[in-house]
């Protein structure tokens, strides 16, 4: 177990370095440096700018530049935004990150609360009406683009029925305390469902097939033979085993969740990392783009790492070789 965890962490490090090299390469490929785009004072000798470039290390060999860049990134110094003059990239990201985290957790909660009970029901009553409906929903959920679903949700539930707000995080009047949270949750319902849709569809399918497998296994038959109650069998024996792959899947689907958040936030004009990313691309604000790319990559690598370690913890049969 420990050996596995250590080896898995050791693999994480070169992955992290590779990721940083890609992002550094992309950042280097970005046109311009801190001096381009600014109106250079014609009375200043161009030699001065050249000296400044030299002083900032822009003329150093690439490996030296990479080392400097990587150590700055590691300490959370992402530079300053080119578009929001003088604002540090770190503060821009900090303003938005919590919103995206709330949205992600909210959609994950919806996913789990919907997918697991329905998946279990489908496995216990295969080929029932609800099972067929769930399968159909699963196919639709995986095929419908989340932005189209989001538009339909806004059109029906927000514009036609007026149940939920169509954009933003709070209405603006409720600051602080319980009222603010109520407003936040209310605003998160539509984007949360939109973001969680694809995950719900796929977890439901996994849950159904895992549960079907587990219910056929010997230890369930033994438990039945011993006269254990059905509720006990289902929740204590079967669910615990069937849920392992689901939790692992969450770690690996983390990237899909983040990509989904970029589009979903755009549909609902939700001020998170996704909208910041898109706006920065439109404004060609390279320091922000690269910082977000790197952060998303690191988040995904950590998600995969945790999923792998968790898997080996709950299932001692897993060994890496």
């Amino acid at each position: 177990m420990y050996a596995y965890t250590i080896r898995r962490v050791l693999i994480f490090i070169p992955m992290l370095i590779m990721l940083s090299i890609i992002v550094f390469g992309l950042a280097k490929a970005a046109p311009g440096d801190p001096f381009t785009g600014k109106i250079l004072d014609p009375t200043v000798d161009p030699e001065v700018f050249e000296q400044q470039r030299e002083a900032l290390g822009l003329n150093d060999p690439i490996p030296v530049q990479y080392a400097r860049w990587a150590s700055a990134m590691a300490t959370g110094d992402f530079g300053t935004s080119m578009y929001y003059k003088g604002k540090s990239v770190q503060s821009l990201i900090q303003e938005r990150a919590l919103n995206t985290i709330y949205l992600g957790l909210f959609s994950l909660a919806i996913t789990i609360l919907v997918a697991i009970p329905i998946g279990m029901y489908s496995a216990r009553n295969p080929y029932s009406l609800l099972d067929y409906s769930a399968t159909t929903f699963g196919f639709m959920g995986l095929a419908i683009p989340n932005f189209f679903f989001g538009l339909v949700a806004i059109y029906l539930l927000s514009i036609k029925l007026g149940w939920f707000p169509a954009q933003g995080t709070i209405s603006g009047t409720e600051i602080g305390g319980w009222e603010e949270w109520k407003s936040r949750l209310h605003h998160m319902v539509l984007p949360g469902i939109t973001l969680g849709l694809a995950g719900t569809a796929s977890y439901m399918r996994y849950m159904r097939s895992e549960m079907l497998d587990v219910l056929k296994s010997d230890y369930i038959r033994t438990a039945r033979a011993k006269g254990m109650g059905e509720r006990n069998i289902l929740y204590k024996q079967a669910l615990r085993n069937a849920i392992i792959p689901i939790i692992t899947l969450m770690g690996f689907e983390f990237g899909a969740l983040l990509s989904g958040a970029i589009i979903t936030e755009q549909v609902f004009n939700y001020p998170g990392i996704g909208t910041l990313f898109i706006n920065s691309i439109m404004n060609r604000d390279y320091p922000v783009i690269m910082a977000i790319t790197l952060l998303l990559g690191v988040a995904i690598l950590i998600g995969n790492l945790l999923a792998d370690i968790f898997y080996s913890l709950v299932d001692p049969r897993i060994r890496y070789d």
Partner: protein
Amino acid sequence: MPKNINKAYKSPFQLAKERFLKNKLAIASIFFLLFIIGAAIFAPFLTDHDPKKGDLLLIEHAPSEEHILGTDGSGRDNFSRLLYGARISLTVGFSAMIFTLIIGVVTGAIAGYYGGIIDNLLMRLTDLVLALPFLVLALTIIALLEKVTIGIFVTIIAITSWPTLTRIVRGSFLSLREQEFVLGARAIGATDRRIIFKHVIPNAIGPIIVNATLMMATMIIAESALSFIGMGIPQPNPTWGNMLSEAQNIRILRNHPEAWIPPGLGILLTVLAINFIGDGLRDAFDPKSNP
């Protein structure tokens, strides 16, 4: 006599074809897809309007006899954009899939067949590309470019999504190259090229076809998602994603559902049909995979 023998022994391909033809959902999906392709090809005969040219006096008009689905924010006819949009969306999806397929099969075959250092290097390269989700990597590359054209766009999709296919192809190559018939082919002096193309690929074709089919659905969604956020095929080219992009304007979203629901349904149904065909092919090539 030989005819009877032919009846008794069917090639795996014939068996797969028979199984596939029994799958009603997949056959229905093929007909639906043919219908969409037909509409895309015969677009000039189905509408007289130019999908790129707008009439500035006819902005956001409600449906009329002249414009069945009304006009968009630039006064362009929505119905003609829907038809011509199918052309671009399907072409982009298909060519991105073919491009990815070529990269994926060649790299996967090389990695799986030769093994060793080449394999190791290629696998690290796939790790590198897979370290970032497709959408983030594609968007970052798009941010670096001055201008995105359809060709560049297809290339970006292909160079960000080949690794999955490479791994699948490599996996089947790794197991196939140890089989007796490959050893036999090598023993009689067949060249690597001949072994790869004549002996190994035909045996690995099932998973390749299935994944390529399902990949086309992913590509169509990727194109429309990127176009929707304004980072894909540039306007005024009609694509389904570009048409949906108009609905980000709350006025169009509220007042003109006839403008954005058809392209959305177009994407949804096309992707659904392709997924059904892909699942049908999977069941046909590998009946054991069906749970």
